[in-house]
């Protein structure tokens, strides 16, 4: 028996056509009990029993429903079938409900047994609605069973192509930054005007050859040199003067410390 058939018969059809777990005829109770496992819990069993009353759920007799349920549970126990606890809990609760319904109404009791019965009815109605909905849903034209999509679709493919973007400035800037980041540290000394010792030697000895008088060292310096060249020339010329004196080519004289340094050609 297919599940679809099972569900289908759950609709508004008369209970005789019911082919589900509770399909066994009333005089075949043993078969019914043996299939107790097939019920989805006590509410499900109650709903099946209610359907057997062949009336609208709103008109069912709660009392007879209770009797039927309890009778079934007792028979199941007599047959030593293993019953899940919730079936037994439901049986006890229904027995309580039945006695409450039969006793003279106690106005103080809250909730009243009538309210409890109404709630049970509402629950059964909701479960019945969903069972019927499930049946109608399963009976629709289902994709892959009744209707089919294309068996061998070619398929759609979207190839993603990336258009890479980079501009001239980013390129050059990147290169500059790579270079700056990884270049070895080099200390570059800026070129500046200097007078080398050699040229100072040449210059001083040439000028000494021209005169016999004492001359101050500063007179040997280039006259219009810019200050930095002048400093260099002073240093070089001083060293040149010392060198010429050591070689005996010049005489040096200084009258006081830090006084002007004078020199003249050696009178050999």
């Amino acid at each position, binding site marked *: 028996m*297919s*599940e679809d058939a*099972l*569900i289908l018969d759950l609709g508004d059809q008369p209970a005789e056509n019911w082919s*589900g777990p509770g399909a066994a005829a009333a005089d075949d109770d043993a078969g019914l009990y043996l299939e107790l496992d*097939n019920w*989805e*819990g*006590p*509410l*499900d069993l109650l709903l099946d029993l209610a359907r057997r009353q062949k009336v609208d759920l709103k008109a069912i007799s709660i009392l007879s429903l209770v009797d039927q349920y309890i009778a079934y549970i007792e028979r199941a126990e007599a047959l030593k079938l293993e019953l899940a606890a*919730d079936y037994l*809990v*439901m049986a*006890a*609760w229904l027995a309580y409900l039945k006695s409450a319904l039969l006793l003279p109404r106690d106005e103080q009791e*809250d*909730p009243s047994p009538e*309210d*409890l019965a*109404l*709630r*049970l009815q*509402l*629950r059964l*109605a*909701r*479960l019945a*609605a*969903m*069972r*019927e*909905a*499930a049946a*109608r*849903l*399963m009976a*629709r*034209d*289902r*994709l*892959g*069973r*009744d*209707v*089919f*999509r*294309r068996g061998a*679709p*070619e*398929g*759609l493919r*979207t190839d993603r192509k990336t258009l890479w973007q980079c501009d001239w400035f980013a390129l050059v800037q990147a290169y500059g930054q790579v270079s700056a980041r990884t270049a070895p540290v080099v200390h570059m000394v800026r070129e500046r005007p200097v007078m080398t010792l050699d040229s100072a030697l040449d210059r001083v000895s040439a000028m000494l050859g021209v005169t016999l008088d004492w001359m101050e060292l500063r007179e040997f310096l280039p006259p219009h040199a810019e200050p930095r060249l002048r400093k260099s020339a002073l240093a070089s010329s001083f060293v040149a003067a010392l060198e010429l004196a050591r070689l005996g080519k010049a005489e040096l004289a200084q009258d006081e410390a830090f006084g002007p340094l004078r020199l003249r050609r050696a009178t050999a």
Partner: protein
Amino acid sequence: MSQPGELERAIEATLFAAEEPMTVAALAGHLGDAAAGDVRDSLRRLAAQYEGRGVHLVERGDRWHFQTAPDLAHLLRREREAVRRLSRAATEVLAIVAYHEPVSRAEIEAIRGVQTSSGTLDVLMEAGWVRVAGRREVPGRPVIYATTPDFLDHFGLASRKELPGIDELKAAGLLDPVDDAFEALTASEEEVAGADTDTGNAAADPLD
């Protein structure tokens, strides 16, 4: 069936070739510069052109696809492996999710009056018909479930509004929780004041 225009031809070819149903937006995107409105109009015209043929163009949850005509099921069914057989429990849970979504497991259990094994929801999620739709912002933050577009596809529904009998069920209050229905019923008879106290005693009901 009149001769199709260029956009109709393009949509026809695209949907024939597609492995999955496509939304109007997906179609418009695939076809480049097509306007969504034009695509929608063309889909309607195409669907009309295919009416009465062996293949139909249908809309399922905002997605369109071609499928065989339902009345030809007998020709095709025999070769196909049966679709997934659902247990009765799974069938009921699926219906409850579809008609009540989004719905928590506790709410499903309240309707069925029995615990739902986690396997049942797993089966439905594995089938691609049910998905986790977030959590309900109530104490415990329970996970809530809803149906998927594939569910609509499979059961041939353009939207959940087409669920069989959903309007009647709604009108009858059968999609409302028992407590709400109970209050509505009893409030009309008595004063509404005492209604709330009932909920506290609901534990007396073994199914709660």
